[in-house]
């Protein structure tokens, strides 16, 4: 097969923008997008809120500069300031570009793109389309890619980079429809596979497939992971599915109640009560559960988000989507009974270490979106900045790879190498000696992460977490794939996803254990304050001989000096 100039792994916002931009930059290039789901299924579609850009449509005095400051402050000063600069100054252009291509943004009275306030932002600068912003952006990008004739390999599961020396020769992937393992020889590869927060499994709001495939592929190829310990939690996920009950429910006057019938937020935020900042509310719920004031159920401990006192009329008129969601996913009508909730992992700040041009340390390999860590979110991402991140850096990745593809010799993956990958892939997993159930391992991984590497972290907990992960990795060696068919073997795919999560879980736990301070989403009970002297830096996790090796990287500063983060 003819080698590709660019192979893009992932068909979400970052991957699709990259494909489009690469074709725009150089239409003669041979570009392919691989995605394990049809691109329009990607998790970008789940982002409801919107994307930040200082358009000044709503607040005339909004500026890019203010957006930059809000982002840096929100990151607890761990974001690289030159990267944030880039993110925020590109924002207006990218939002307008999407608009020009057909994204159906909601509109202001003067017919410009509508904007609304969002947490942590000094001005209302979040551009949105009702509560389906990510969905409509993804649709637009997919449509434009179809228009441009982008070549898609849908339902291909990426397995590994083919590496020779310091550079990649392309990608190995499994065609789900046939089970065939295929080689994609390429000059450049862009990894854009999304986040890794699904490793918390039932304690995560993420799609089932947000298993960090791109990061794991890069990690196994020797590329460092940056700031993996930073995982954002949302205070009110549904008990069974982890899906988010958005802040609107508390905004309209919902109470958080423990098993003693107390509005426990009085203990943690006397004035703001249920409307305190997201991380504080998450920690409060977790404390209630840890101190035994949660409700018990087979699906785990939880608390109540009670809306019943608001009355049927208000719930129906103001919170119809939340009500529908509770009924569909939890079987609970919030008019009649309280909603069972608990904190849930929903975003991963860490990822593949890249520079501002999305380059990784490996020649010809780029990464963008939640998959990467530039870093623009630092220790804590602001709402409305995740969609922006995938768009801006997806675009940059496409442009950079298109410009640089000519620099690299085309890779050539040999038949022999492909065979090795096939062997490694299926070797033994169907054998009778393999008895470990992947569902169980996955569940246990989620449990130990939530308990020991979750919202509250502490040396002894982390130690246990690291041990658990090591044991799970050991048990994984005897994991069983009982579906032996080639066609659409989702059993095999889920086992391979679990392998990716196990590899990355190690880096999350290692980073959390090393970072002896509390910053942004990372809270150490034993080190409750931010320690700029020791820890104002990124962690880098690299795999060497199957073990995590931790390194570090300085934070790029700029106009803004370190300050205490208070709101």
């Amino acid at each position, binding site marked *: 097969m003819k080698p590709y100039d660019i192979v893009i792994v992932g068909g979400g916002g970052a991957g699709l923008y990259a494909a489009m931009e690469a074709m725009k930059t150089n239409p003669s290039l041979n570009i392919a997008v691989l995605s394990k*789901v*049809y691109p*329009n*299924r*990607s*998790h970008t*579609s*789940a982002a409801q809120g919107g994307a930040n850009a200082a*358009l000044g449509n709503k607040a005339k005095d909004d500026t890019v500069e203010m957006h930059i400051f809000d982002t840096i402050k929100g990151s607890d000063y761990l974001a690289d300031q030159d990267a944030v600069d880039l993110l925020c100054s590109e924002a207006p*252009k990218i939002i*307008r570009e999407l*608009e*020009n*291509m*057909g994204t*159906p*943004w909601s*509109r202001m009275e003067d*017919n*410009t*793109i509508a904007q609304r306030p969002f947490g942590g932002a000094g001005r209302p600068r979040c551009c949105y389309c*009702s509560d*389906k912003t990510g*969905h*409509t952006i993804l*649709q637009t990008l997919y*449509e*434009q890619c*179809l*228009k441009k004739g982008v070549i898609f390999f849908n339902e291909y599961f990426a397995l590994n980079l083919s590496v020779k020396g310091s550079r990649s020769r392309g990608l190995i992937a499994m065609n789900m*429809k046939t089970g065939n393992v295929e080689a994609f020889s390429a000059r450049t590869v862009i990894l854009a596979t999304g986040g890794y927060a699904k490793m918390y499994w039932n304690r995560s709001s993420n*799609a*089932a*497939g947000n298993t960090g495939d791109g990061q794991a592929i890069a990690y196994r190829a020797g590329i460092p992971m940056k700031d993996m310990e930073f995982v954002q939690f949302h205070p009110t996920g549904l008990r*069974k599915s982890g*899906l988010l009950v958005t802040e609107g429910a508390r905004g309209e006057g919902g109470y958080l*109640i423990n*098993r003693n*019938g107390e509005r426990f937020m009085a203990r943690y935020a006397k004035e703001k009560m249920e409307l305190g900042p997201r991380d504080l509310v998450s920690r409060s719920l977790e404390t209630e559960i840890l101190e035994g004031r949660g*409700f*018990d159920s087979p699906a785990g401990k939880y608390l*109540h988000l009670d809306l*019943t006192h608001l009355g049927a009329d208000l719930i129906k008129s103001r919170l119809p989507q939340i009500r529908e969601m509770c009924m*569909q*996913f939890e*079987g*609970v009508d919030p008019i009649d*009974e*309280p909603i*069972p909730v608990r904190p849930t992992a929903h975003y991963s700040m860490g990822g593949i270490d890249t520079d501002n041009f999305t380059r990784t340390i490996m020649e010809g390999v780029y990464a963008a979106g939640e998959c990467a860590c530039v870093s623009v979110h630092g220790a804590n991402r602001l709402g409305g900045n995740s969609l922006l991140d995938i768009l801006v850096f997806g675009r940059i990745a496409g442009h950079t790879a298109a410009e640089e593809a000519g620099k690299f010799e085309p890779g050539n993956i040999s038949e022999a190498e492909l065979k090795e990958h096939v062997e490694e892939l299926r070797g033994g997993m169907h054998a009778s000696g393999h008895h470990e*159930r*992947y*569902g169980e391992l996955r569940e246990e991984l989620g449990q130990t992460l939530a308990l020991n590497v979750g919202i509250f972290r502490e040396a002894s907990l982390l130690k246990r977490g690291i041990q658990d992960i090591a044991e799970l990795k050991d048990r994984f060696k005897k994991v069983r794939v009982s*579906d032996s*068919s*080639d*066609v*659409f073997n*989702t*059993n095999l795919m889920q086992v391979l996803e679990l392998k990716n999560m196990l590899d990355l879980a190690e880096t999350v736990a290692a980073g959390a254990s090393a970072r002896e301070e509390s910053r942004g989403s990372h809270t150490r009970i034993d080190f409750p304050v931010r320690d700029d002297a020791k820890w104002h830096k990124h962690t880098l996790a690299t795999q060497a001989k199957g073990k995590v090796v931790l390194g570090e990287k300085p934070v790029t500063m700029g106009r803004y000096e370190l300050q205490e983060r208070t709101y």
Partner: protein
Amino acid sequence: MTAPTDQHIEGTKDVTFRIFRFNPQVDSKPYFDDYTIPVERGVTVLRSLNYIKEHIDASISFRAFCQAGICGSCGMRVNGLSQLACTTQVWDVLAKSRESGIIKVEPLRNLPLIKDLIVDMDPLVDKMKHYSNWIDSTMPESSMGKKEFLISEAEFLRYDKATDCILCASCVSECSILRANKEYVSPAVLLKSYRMNVDSRDAIHGKRLAELVKDHGVWDCTHCYRCQESCVKSIPIMDAIHGIREDAIELRGMKDTSGSKHAEAFMSDIEKKGKLVEATLPIRTNGIVWTLQNLLPMAVKMIMKRRTPPPPPLVKSAKGIKIFREMFREMTEHVRQDHKSQKK
């Protein structure tokens, strides 16, 4: 505030999932496997399938991704009705099951089967491409990113609901015409086409419409409303289909198709007689040659059975037709004014 309770008490029910199975590598034809599991209240069909896959039979194959009703992966037929497994509560389905305690789970219809509950979505993507289901912007690519189009809230509302579509293909699965001919454009693609056509930023309305009015296009829809009824996002898909037809006839004058002639015959008959002249509809829709070739034997039989009056057709005008005609024409004047002001 509710009284404190220690435990959320929830009963469970034993539910048998009767799952469609087919592995093209070994099976010559599909069959069903039964799996009985206890299901507590609040559990969705998808969670049950996950449970069965993890605990009983890992070889059951189905797609699932976001599990939150937004990605559209898990479209399947539950007790015969196409829907998302992730937004469907088991107990709700059970209450309506014809066979007590049994829930039948099958793949979507009208798309090629790959394995178990998985169907091939490529035909749908191919149709999206064929009917240019994208905005081809009036703005040249080189000028993009500099300034916004100004779009009124009224225009946004025209396509707002249509952009809810998650391409789950429930409508595709339920469509009566697709069942009869897989070449048919499909409800979802008509919906998307409509969404593009009412967007003022798009430059290729005409080209898209020209394709839509051809064979297997918008005129083949039989108004059965199954698409709309099954839409998991409650999108009024038929309004979109009608919108395309209205656009084709009224604004772009694409009247040279059998579908539009058929539709317009209603308008002229009503104006003239207040009644539809059914007997001559075939001729006016498809011309005399087609009618003679296709319907003559049947027409003779029908006339023999006195099902339709012998030609020339005698349809009595409705009573008071004169004043009716005046009113009808007055409305025609209103419509003309509307179009004038729209063009401005």
